[in-house]
């Protein structure tokens, strides 16, 4: 999986880690994937991280203070068949009500007989399972919904979403 991790995925991970450090929601977030760069703005003097690569950027404006974030989708990283469990008789990777962490495997997408792990890009509680085991999924299809730990639904959408032109 890590071999196939895109620059954007790396950026998301880095940004998520940065956001974990802050007690308050950010006022802005920029990801760029040409020569990797992550910028996070807080209302106070802003820590800035730059990691260094292509053509996707997402910008999130300041979000209104919300007590709870809207649930965020974990999406299929590629087209294929989605499996919720590592083997036919095994329990699912995650079930409704389970807690997931950033980077935790929540399923498998099989494409051309290759098993590709699907990892959550957010931390929180699984509040909805959208796709049944052994179902065909498209690229970027929402698989399950996670109620994130922190406020800032807008950011969560960035992590949850695929690339948008």
């Amino acid at each position, binding site marked *: 999986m890590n071999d196939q991790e895109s620059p954007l995925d790396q950026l998301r991970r880095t940004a998520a880690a940065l956001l974990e450090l802050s007690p308050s929601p950010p006022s802005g977030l920029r990801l760029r994937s040409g020569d990797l760069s992550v910028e996070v703005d807080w209302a106070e003097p802003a820590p800035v991280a730059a990691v260094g690569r292509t*053509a996707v950027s997402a910008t999130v404006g300041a979000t209104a203070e919300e007590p709870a974030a809207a649930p965020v989708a974990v999406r299929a990283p590629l087209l294929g068949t989605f499996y919720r469990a590592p083997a036919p008789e095994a329990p699912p990777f995650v079930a409704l009500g389970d807690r997931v962490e950033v980077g935790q495997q929540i399923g498998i997408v099989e494409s051309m007989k290759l098993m590709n792990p699907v990892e959550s890009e957010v931390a929180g509680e699984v509040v909805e399972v959208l796709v049944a085991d052994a179902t065909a999924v498209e690229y970027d299809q929402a698989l399950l919904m996670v109620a994130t730990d922190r406020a800032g639904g807008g950011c969560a959408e960035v992590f949850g979403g695929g690339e948008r*032109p």
Partner: protein
Amino acid sequence: MRFRSVLVANRGEIAVRVVRACRELGIRTIAVYSTADRDAVHDRLGDEQVHIGPAPARRSYLNAAAVIEAALQRGAEAVHPGYGFLSEDPDFAAACAENGLTFVGPPPEVIGRFGDKAAARAAMGEAGLPILPGTGTAVEEAEARAAADDIGYPVIIKAVVGGGGRGMEIVTGPDAFAAAYRRTRETARLLFGDDRVCVERFLTAAHHIEVQVLCDDHGNAVHLGVRDCSAQRRRQKLVEESPSPVVGPELAERIAAAALRGARAAGYRGAGTFEFLLDAESRDFYFMEANCRIQVEHPVTEMVTGVDLVREQLLIAAGQPLSMRQEDVRPYGVAVECRINAEDPDRDFVPAPGPLTEFVPPGGPFVRVDTHAYPGLTVTPHYDPLIAKVICWGPDRETALDRMDRALAELRVAGPGVRTTTAFLRELIAHPLFRKGVHTTSLVDLVVAERRPQPTWSTT
């Protein structure tokens, strides 16, 4: 038999074109799209649509695994690759077969043979097609120099793996050879990561003539006449027509016979195009390359022959014999195609994509428009800039060109940041050399040079 379902592994106007042929045959269609095309997906692009990957083509339209997986998921029996993208990838064609899918195109080994330009040239030479005097394969400097002296100047030095008009240099005399040779190798190394070059005779004035062929699995092969694609810029065709204004029936027949000989020798199957250069002075013609796909300019052949080439592709792939014999192919009249690209002719044809606030295609008698565009579509910068193809037919060339000028005047394409080649194309087809039909492959450069330079600060 016929296919019941076909996955269209492409986008833009050619995806619409393939879907139309499928629908007329009663075939269910599955379209694929990338995130960049997500907002442009509608039922004209297929009965079902599958999101196969993000905007970059290598992760979507060039992603063989995703395309095949999508075809299997949706129960497609065949995959039509259109042009570009995976259409001439022998590994993709082989992978389709391995997964029980019929690839609409020639067998993988035929695609592979024609994909290697040097091997194709050698094979076609063996089959008796005329080829330009040249080394054929990579040569070191001393050998290249000896070959050039032997061929006679001017010669062209070009990268073995090159394409798109880059990585090549013309040498007019022996004094300039050594420097040009070294420069071309360096350029080839930079552009393609492969600095092998070959040497060939250069035709100072040439016409680009190509032959459309159709071959089935039952030993039948027909040609559908020639197209003239001499109006090109850096090997990108702008205007195509059939028949050629510079090739009479007897010469056309000889060139077409050569193409059929090549197709048979190669074990060709499906629709293919054999490209030739015609020396404007000597009137000798030479095989250049064969394209194992439907081509952008296929409609001009359809308009003069009445043969639906995409339909034939689908029937041939399903194992049916050709629906016509050679004597049934009776071209009539002249058809011309103009490619409307989102490019700015005033700024060296840089891409000028953007949202279309206005899109009104031309209409009227004998005017055909192949397009995926509509008002509200955003022309994306991620893929080729083709917005529409305007094709006009007339009983003679003059009528067809008058009709094209009228059609281009009717076409309205506008949007913030959007520029098109429409006005440039009208100038091009009005040029005296083009009107007389004596233009060579250097016409477009000439027209570009003749246009008054546009100040960069001007706005319109």
